[in-house]
């Protein structure tokens, strides 16, 4: 069993390939998390505009990308758009797909955060002469982020996990590298190793989240 799933010789041979994949997974995460967050901040700020012709298209936009499986979006960009002469490459497609998909999710989380900040906060800021945008940036958003920290972290965990989709468009991240190594060696050890790496990388985050969620619950009681 161990011979099959955690073969030492194969692990040793595949190790550099896996490490390179891990590096790319981390780099990809460092790119797509801020990208999605930026998209989310824009959507959340737009959601504070109480005008119907902003609210409805915004809600439709967010719901559209929440209903659309991210892999379908990615494949559409990667395999569909080139027919229209728009070739973005695997990397560009991943960046755009994550911006759209995770932006919608971050936007929902931040919107809930903004709504959790009492209206008096923005009124106090406006009464001292801060503009709407200044009040949002300096007074509302910092509190909103703090209020939804567990949800933001949970979403970020999902985004990092989602980077494994990039393997489908041949970006050499951890899962892609593991599958390459597996098909070369006809042995599942590299995939098992990749899973272990993912787990060791993300377990602390899961533990932290579990604690934050429990604490939030205890606070509500």
């Amino acid at each position, binding site marked *: *069993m161990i011979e*099959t*799933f955690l073969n030492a010789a194969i692990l040793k041979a595949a190790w550099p390939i896996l490490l390179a994949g891990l590096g790319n997974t981390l780099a990809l995460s460092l790119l797509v998390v801020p990208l999605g967050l930026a998209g989310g901040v824009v959507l959340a700020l737009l959601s504070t505009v109480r005008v119907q012709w902003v609210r409805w298209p915004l809600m439709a936009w967010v*719901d*559209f990308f*929440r*209903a*659309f*499986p*991210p*892999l*379908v979006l990615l*494949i*559409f960009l990667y*395999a*569909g*758009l080139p*027919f*229209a002469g728009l070739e973005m490459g695997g990397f560009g497609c991943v960046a755009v797909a994550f911006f759209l998909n995770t932006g919608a999710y971050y936007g929902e989380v931040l919107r809930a955060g903004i709504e959790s900040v009492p209206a008096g906060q923005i009124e106090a800021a406006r009464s001292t002469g801060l503009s709407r945008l200044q009040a949002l940036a300096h007074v509302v958003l910092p509190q909103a982020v703090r209020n939804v920290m567990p949800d933001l972290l949970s979403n970020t*965990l*999902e985004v990092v*996990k*989602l*980077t*494994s*989709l990039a*393997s*489908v468009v041949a970006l050499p991240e951890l*899962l892609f590298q*593991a*599958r390459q190594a*597996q098909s070369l060696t006809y*042995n*599942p050890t590299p*995939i*098992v190793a*990749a*899973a272990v790496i*993912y*787990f060791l*990388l*993300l*377990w602390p*985050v*899961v*533990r932290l*989240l*579990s604690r934050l*969620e*429990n604490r939030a*619950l205890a606070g*509500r*009681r």
Partner: protein
Amino acid sequence: MGNWDRFVETFFNAKVMAKYWPDILSGLFVTIELAALIVVTGLIAGLALALLRSLGIRPLNWLIVFVVDLFRALPPLVIIVLIYFGLPSVDLVPSGFVSTWISLALVLMAFAEEIFWAGITAVPRGQWEAARSTGLSFGQTLLGVVLPQALRITIPPLTNRTIAITKGTALGSVVAVSEILGQASSAVSNSYNPSPLTLGAAAYLVLFLPVVVLGRWIETRFAWKR
């Protein structure tokens, strides 16, 4: 031919769509079947784990927490690939369909356990004490008093999580499941035209958009009552 015509010709090609819509439709049914299996088994397994955890048996709870953590930390696609490409090495050969089903059901189980457990612990101790003081057994209290209250708290987060995980059925295309995306992709390579992808995208929206809207409705409805 104008730009618009070329655009329509490319992404909304009537001839290609007419030829491949039965494929997409059969993909839609596979997706629905897969999604239904994942939701039912995942939620039941998650609830069962949460109930087991409420028994308070230490070593068992550690095991439950570890399993939950494991499937929260691993990317679903990694689990699918692991099962599909890994198990054959020990002469278990699950199909792509079964691999995807098991993987996503495990992931949903993990998230559902967390949410159910949070719901159970959110019910005040006084509820337990009141029920037990009237002579209800542990099981009766759990099922008759605590769980109904817990379920109410859990419905909004559970709905959102279930939608997000069920959307993962598209990952099945990676292991040759002929669900919507799989059908659409092979139709694209057969027809040299992306219109089947447009159809596929539409199929996903038809399937999931109502659920997302429903989820939003549930969220606001339950938020009012808190």
